[in-house]
């Protein structure tokens, strides 16, 4: 899987500088300080850490950054280093978002620089050779995952996403009538099923 992911990253963002260049070292001591600043209780702190990390990942993803997970790690590392260095940060969960915003500027700068270099060298992104195979595997996995869903959820998700615009609108309208829920509730239910399916598909593809 590591190999696949690496080739996918290279094919999608060839202009990106090696991540190690930007990555700072997070020592155990700094990490412990960060956890402690989130909450003195280590279990609660761990839960908060995951929540903060997820928020950061979403932030970097929304902002179109190439490696959201790595960027989230980096923002936390920088914050942890400040705390370990003696800075008093009263609300690290908010502070780390600010650090992420500064990091975003660095990422954009670096991405622009790399794009310029790539343009000069005429190194255009190449589509991964295995992309067609991957999409076939993904479709097969999706079929398998759909089979594992309860029948009502399977029918809902297929109807919800079936067809083009007008067909979709009609299907969704009928679903709201049949399930006696409003459009917004139906949308959220479909989203939940979609997310479960996607997780199942990615696990299947990784195998």
């Amino acid at each position, binding site marked *: 899987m590591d190999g696949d992911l690496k080739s996918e990253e290279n094919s999608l963002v060839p202009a990106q500088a090696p991540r190690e260049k930007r990555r700072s070292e997070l020592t155990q001591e700094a990490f412990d300080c960060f956890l402690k600043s989130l909450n003195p209780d280590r279990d609660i702190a761990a839960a908060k850490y995951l929540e903060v990390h997820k928020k950061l990942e979403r932030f970097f993803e929304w902002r179109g950054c190439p*490696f959201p997970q790595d960027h989230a790690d980096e923002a936390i590392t920088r914050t942890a280093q400040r705390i370990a260095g003696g800075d008093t940060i*009263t609300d690290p969960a908010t502070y780390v978002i600010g650090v992420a915003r500064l990091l975003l500027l660095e990422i954009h700068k670096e991405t622009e620089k790399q794009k310029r270099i790539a343009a000069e060298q005429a190194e255009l992104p190449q589509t991964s050779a295995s992309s067609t195979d991957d999409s076939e595997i993904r479709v097969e996995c999706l079929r398998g995952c759909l089979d594992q869903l309860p029948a009502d959820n399977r029918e809902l998700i297929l109807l919800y996403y079936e067809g083009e615009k007008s067909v979709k609108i009609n299907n969704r309208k*009928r679903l709201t009538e049949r399930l006696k829920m409003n459009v917004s509730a139906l949308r959220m239910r479909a989203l939940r099923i979609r997310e479960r399916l996607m997780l199942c598909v990615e696990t299947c593809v990784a195998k």
Partner: protein
Amino acid sequence: MEDDSIEETVVVRYLLGDLPEEAQVQVEDRAFSDPEYLRLIEAVEADLIDSYVQGEMSLPERQQFESRFLASPQRQKKVEFARALARVAGESKPVLASAQAERAPTARYSWREALAQILRGRSPAFQFAMAAIILILAVVASWEVVQTVRLHGDMNQLEAERRLQQQREQVLQQQINQEHARAEELAAQMQQQGGHPAVASLMLLPEIARTQGSLPELVIPGPAQLASIQIQLEPRDVYPRFRAELRNRSGDEILTRANLRAQRSSTGRAVVLEVPASALNPGDYELALKGVSGEEMTDIGYYNFSVRKK
């Protein structure tokens, strides 16, 4: 319902990277504090990906989408998943779609049949002319529809931005009023106790100081030794240190303080600048606040206020 649509328009623009930085920060701050809003963003994101894979986006939207969504492997996987889902859902034979399909051919037959009836028995030249007119009308009508939809979208967006700004100004105004009330209450208490406050205080809020008609006023009672100026920070103003520069109306520097730190305040986070009352003469002043991170310095804002002594 209309509000939902406005909100979604903002989220779509956010996800496509089409909002100004300040509005992006607002969307993120709200998403991180309101789980329902976060889910809305995730739902809109899924819809956008579906529109992309089904070719329902305009060319500029498509370009924005590609630069924003195809940047990371994680999001690329979401797009691939949406492709697979559209394909598999398209292959299935859902009950509702079948029911609709049964009625659709009737409707299609009706207008085609009606058109054929008009053209039937006419000369080829007449038929050609009619077909050309219908084609032109169809193109004009489509163009009109597209323009109307675009215009409607722009108006919704402008309205959303206007409301956001109004709400923000209302909140800030409320905060100013509360602070004024608090200051007056304290002054009244001091007077009842037969004294004057030893510290004169003023709160400066982001932007409001510049948009209001009259300048915020720092009133320094005679015996006060110190003036405390609290500069309210926005959530995005996160810096390890701050630098404040105070100038008079002529631009002469009165005082500079580096190494200031943000503190918690009743309304969020603030930087507090303490100035000896003797350094402040009656008149107008400008305070420049900068965020300092390492060797980099970023302008946060310029705040104008006036000083009155009594």
